């Protein structure tokens, strides 16, 4: 009896407490909305949004619905996260490896890089790039070409766009190359296991990846042209580049700040991962006669990755969540387009803020679930 009381009373009290809080809040919201004449509902999503978005990956204009505006914002968020994740991974791996270098200068430069970018609030870094650094760039008419065809100006970064003919054949050839590589790997593994013969899989794979798409250019009728941005005079003093792709300065500032900031955390993960593999593993592998490359590939990396990947994914998630700071410099991401402009226009605070939060929550929880599954899979199974 005593046990049952101890077990159920606290639970009932807690549930009651939570229910009461939610009930109280809902009741207040109900009365408040009744008083102000606001009704709750998601019908506004299909209404015409009648605002414009500066930068969009899909066709969008003011006559489209709020739901489409939401999609525009979501895609912009994903775009900036995707680019930043790629850059921060490359930077992070380089810096993380550099921190373990035996070279005093490299080790310390890398350490200072980490200390420097990690300890300045991200928002300040975004502001610095956007309001200070990128504003110092030249006007379009005075810009020098980078790599001959791209222009970094105060109005954004202009890069050539690709004009494809028969793009699908090119993609098929790439797909064929990947399939061929998988078959090759399988065959090579088989050969190694049965006959003990080694073939340079990496070299063959690289060759396949280059040769097959090249063939598609020669025989498949695929052609690629670059549309290079050209300077055009709008009025007496106003110039602009036409053609190609223009990346707005907001996007550049955001990518720079996010990737530099997150790369420091990725670097720490990489360092911890490589340091986490015990020295004995390396020595044992070398003593069985593996070459240094094989030691790295077959012994060190699989173990280091096991330590590196979970915290790094966490950093990617943080990056995606941090990309919401875009709102501070008016990059049209999910928060700015939806929780900013759309909320202003419709006044549907509860609906819009909940949708925005749920979107981020869904992204986070999905990736977290995948990570949990992956961690379970790669866990070392001790007997």
């Amino acid at each position, binding site marked *: 009896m005593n046990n049952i009381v101890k*077990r159920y009373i*606290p*639970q*009932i009290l*807690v*549930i009651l407490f*939570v229910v009461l809080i939610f009930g109280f*809040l*809902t009741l*207040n*919201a109900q*009365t*408040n*909305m009744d*008083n102000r004449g606001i009704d709750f509902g998601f019908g506004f999503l299909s209404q015409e949004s009648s605002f414009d978005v500066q930068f969009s990956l899909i066709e969008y204009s003011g006559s489209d619905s709020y739901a489409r505006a939401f999609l525009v914002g979501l895609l912009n968020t994903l775009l900036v996260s995707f680019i930043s994740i790629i850059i921060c991974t490359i930077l992070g791996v380089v810096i993380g490896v550099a921190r373990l*270098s*035996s*070279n*005093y*200068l*490299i080790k310390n*430069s890398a350490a200072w890089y980490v*200390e*420097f970018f*990690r*300890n*300045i*609030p*991200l*928002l*300040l*870094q975004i*502001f*610095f790039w956007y*309001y*200070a*650094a990128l*504003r*110092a760039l030249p006007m379009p008419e005075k810009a020098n070409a980078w790599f001959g065809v791209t222009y970094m100006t105060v109005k954004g970064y202009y890069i050539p766009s690709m004009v494809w003919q028969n793009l699908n054949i090119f993609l098929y050839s790439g797909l064929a190359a990947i399939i061929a590589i998988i078959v090759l790997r399988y065959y090579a593994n088989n050969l190694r296991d049965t006959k003990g013969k080694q073939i340079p899989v990496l070299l063959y794979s690289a060759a396949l990846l280059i040769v097959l798409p090249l063939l598609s250019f020669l025989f498949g009728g695929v052609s690629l042209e670059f549309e290079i941005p050209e300077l055009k005079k709008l009025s007496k003093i106003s110039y602009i580049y036409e053609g190609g792709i223009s990346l707005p300065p907001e996007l550049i500032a955001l990518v720079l700040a996010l990737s530099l900031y997150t790369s420091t955390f990725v670097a720490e993960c990489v360092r911890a991962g490589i340091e986490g593999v015990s020295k004995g593993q390396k020595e044992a592998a070398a003593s069985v006669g593996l070459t240094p490359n094989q030691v790295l590939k077959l012994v060190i990396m699989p173990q280091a990755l096991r330590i590196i990947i979970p915290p790094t994914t966490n950093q990617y998630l943080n990056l995606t*969540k*941090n990309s*919401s*700071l875009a*709102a*501070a410099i008016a990059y049209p991401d999910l*928060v700015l387009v939806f*929780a900013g402009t759309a*909320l202003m226009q419709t006044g549907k*605070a*509860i609906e819009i*803020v*909940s949708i*925005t*939060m749920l979107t*981020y*929550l869904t992204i*986070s*929880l999905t990736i*977290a679930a995948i990570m949990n599954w992956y961690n379970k899979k790669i866990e070392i199974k001790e007997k």
Partner: protein
Amino acid sequence: MQILNFLKPNRDNIKNYSIIGSFLVLVSLIDVISNAFLKINLTFFLPGSLTTLFPLIIGLIGLNMMRIDYSGNKKLDLLNKNINTNNFNALLTLVILFSIIKALPQSLSWMIFDATISGDSKDACTGTGACWTYIKVWFRRFMYGMYPNEFHWRINTAFILVIALGFVGYFMKENLKKYLALYYVIIYPVIAYLVIYYLISGGSFGLQWVETGAWGGLSLTFIVSFFCLIFCFPLGMIFALGRRSNLPAIKYISICYIEFWRGVPLITVLFMSSVMFPMFLPEDFFMDKLVRVIIAITLFEAAYCAEVIRGGLQSLPRGQYDAAKSLGMGYWKMHIFVILPQALKLVIPGIANTFLALVKDTPLIFVVGLAELAGMLALAKTNPKWLGFAMEGYIFASIIFWIICYAMSKYSYNLEAKYKTER
């Protein structure tokens, strides 16, 4: 790199080789330095691209000539071991050295030699360097926001009082030490709140009322992070215990809470506190914006705190629980006297990191219109009398935040090292 082999020294001729090698490195350094500082190109007779590569090539040959496994000369061995283990390392060494030398004169002259600090208006800044006058004139605004100038002593006094009260634990008598946790978790926050309320807000004791809208600058950053810090810790502890509980209702409510806050960005939480939260309050109940923001950040950081504390709870060996239970301790006794003291000691570095993240997150309150340091910078930047000094402002703010955060992270490393040895 086989070609360079004839340049390899051996034990016998290392002396000559190292002299020639260091001479070559010296030449390359002199070339770069004269190029960067004096704008003199010593290698003007070489064709364009070779001029820029000249110091690199000369330096590489020099370092290659000095490289030897063991020479007996301590300094040379130290040099070889640290920056000159192979050609790739030597190249990186030179590239880093040269880029530092190349960047120095520009940044130094911008930040120090050509910079202005005298005067008190924009006209003083005529040079090509930074305009620190801007920072000097706006300094009080950056520190105290729109808080009236004549009352700044109130903020200072309040901060000194709060910090002094925080150190009480160090001077407490031995027999009172058992109440330390009680003091920090309950009494201290209340006193700190009263101090800040009566001194900074004013309104009584003859102090003029200053509304929170006027608060700002770095002092607001401190106020927000201080309150979030002291509130999120106990809250995090509750949810950590809740998540480890074997009562399903409590466990799942805690999990939902933690996962929800960890899954959303802080900026949406702040949006929620400013536009959505007022809808959920009783009609004529007014809650100050600053209070709402502090609540929002506290709830948010408590989830992160909870996860860190849970890590500590999980890493305690089961024996501790069993031993406590076998002594006949109940749930609360066991946790208060046995589990939590050990677990909290373990997670101090993690908690310090969470607090560091909290401090770095406070500038975000700018998006709901509270002008702390980043917000004041944005205001100052758009002031028509002071246009065009964004760079100086952000560098100033970055330096301040960097010092705070770096000190905190170093402190957490120290704590980590300290508690590692004790176990």
